[in-house]
């Protein structure tokens, strides 16, 4: 049930518990990103081909070998989907957290600029967020292509 609570709804509670500081922001981002990663990891592990598990059993793999040689690589595509989705959630959460429950940061700066009708600073903050979002997405994508290059191979030589 906990994961059905929109994590942004926890902002008042987080402010009351932790105040307006970095730990409040980090806690909100952690809560917001935890579930996409958790759900995708869980689903990835549950979806591992049972035939491969059985093959591992026939090779007498230990639990550790089974995890690192079969389960983790098989679940990795789904785990990376979760991480990439979580990165999007992370930026959204950070913007909201910095706007509402912070005394510093880009969101705070944008909010402050809004109060002084400083349009240029507001636009700058949006552009900075866009650049950071793009960079994090590119990093996630490069991880995907590095770790999942086998998915891009087709039947070219058969």
């Amino acid at each position, binding site marked *: 049930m906990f994961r059905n609570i929109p994590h942004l709804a926890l902002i008042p509670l987080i402010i009351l518990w932790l105040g307006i500081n970095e730990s409040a922001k980090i806690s909100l981002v952690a809560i917001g990103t935890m579930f996409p990663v958790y759900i995708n990891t869980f689903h990835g592990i549950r979806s591992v081909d049972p035939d491969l598990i059985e093959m591992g059993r026939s090779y007498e793999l230990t639990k550790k070998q089974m995890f690192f040689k079969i389960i983790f690589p098989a679940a990795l595509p789904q785990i990376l989907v979760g991480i990439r989705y979580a990165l999007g959630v992370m930026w959204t959460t950070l913007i909201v957290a910095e706007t509402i429950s912070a005394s510093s940061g880009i969101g705070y700066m944008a909010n402050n600029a809004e109060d002084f009708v400083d349009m240029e600073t507001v636009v700058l903050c949006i552009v900075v967020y866009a650049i950071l979002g793009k960079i994090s997405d590119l990093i996630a994508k490069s991880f995907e292509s590095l770790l999942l290059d086998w998915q891009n191979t087709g*039947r070219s030589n058969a």
Partner: protein
Amino acid sequence: MNELNNTMISIKNINKTYNNLTALHDVNLDIKQGEFIALVGMSGGGKSTLLRLIAGLERPTTGSVTIDQADSKTLMRVMFQEDRLLPWMSVLDNLSFGSKDKNTKAHAQELLELVELEDYADHYPTQLSGGQKQRVALARALMSHPKILLLDEPLGALDALTRRKMQDLILDICQKQNLTTILVTHDVEEAARMADRIIVMKDSTNSYEEDCPKNRNAGQIGIVADRVLGEILDEKRVEIKTA
């Protein structure tokens, strides 16, 4: 042909039930070293269950499977109907998977040459055809120098031509390496072509056995296949005299 003297696998009074459903009933079977056995029968006859029990992937409800070697775990390898290659590993890495051999790469390369896939070492399984994947699976099964090869319908999904080539390849390897082999197949002709002995699995037990002639020709294969098929289908046996 190989000398068939020692009993390699001894199956005694095996029973296997799943939630009151009998999969195997009182199966007794001795398989000699170097022997090529084919298990045939209708679907649900218990042949795959028997193979899985021998492989140690399942435990019998009662009875025992005895492998006549001290270290039975490393000397037995299973090749399944699906290739079960790890898609994130190259062909060479798939072969090295699970191997404790120190000269793994060199041995893997040798086996790839044996299955005529030496040029595909760096390819991923998705880049291979069905027949090529099964050849890689065969090479992987041979990686740890097994004494027993368990084949669970490994050629079931292949086209007729590739299937025939794979049959020849498996037969050649099994004879050269003196492997004790158990083949589960739906194809009676395949069994008659490859096996030293055909076991018919019917009504959850081994109901009939047929010894196949050595150096058989196409006609003898046909006769054996007809006889085995008759047993599976409960047809009246017609005696055919062979030259």
